[in-house]
């Protein structure tokens, strides 16, 4: 019993920390697209958190609305916004390239 509780505690701790960190990264991201992807990831983890809180129905809503639909809507919104914002807000400090090393 003891070991099982500890494992569950470890799971909850990792989940909680990852959520906090993701939330912070989402808010702090200067790049809108990255913020949206982080938000989708946040929604997925949040659904897992609801599961751990024994609320599968809320988890269902979170997965469907939070991660799926809101993510898609935000991406669509971004594609509408982008041309106007391009001149005002710098996207990222260095230009992206397709090969990292």
């Amino acid at each position: 019993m003891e070991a099982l509780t500890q494992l569950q505690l470890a799971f909850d701790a990792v989940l909680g920390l990852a959520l906090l960190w993701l939330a912070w990264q989402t808010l702090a991201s200067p790049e809108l697209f990255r913020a949206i992807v982080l938000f989708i990831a946040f929604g997925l983890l949040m659904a897992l958190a609801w599961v751990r809180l024994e609320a599968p129905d809320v988890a269902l809503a979170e997965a469907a609305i939070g991660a799926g639909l809101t993510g898609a809507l935000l991406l669509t919104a971004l594609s509408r916004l982008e041309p106007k914002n391009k001149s005002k807000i710098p996207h990222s400090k260095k230009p992206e390239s397709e090969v990292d090393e």
Partner: protein
Amino acid sequence: MSVSDIITTILLIAGAAFFLVGTVGLLRFPDVYTRLHALTKADNVGLGLMVAGLALQAESWAVVGKLLLIWCLVLLAGASVAHLVTVVARQRGIKLWKR
């Protein structure tokens, strides 16, 4: 511990190993296309093994069916998304990685 428990244990650990490999591939592979390879294959096999392991423990045939349904959906989603991303990446002119 029964025989089915032992098989489940093996399948779950193998499945988890494939998920780890998927993440390693995602982090190590050099371009979008190769990362897609790692994702579609390793993850689908990982989930497949996990589904097989959990199906052995399922309480009814309907649950086995539901697990298989979830796996099929993920397979379909993985393959379609991989294809879409590849098409658009090629249209955008993202070059293939060369050593």
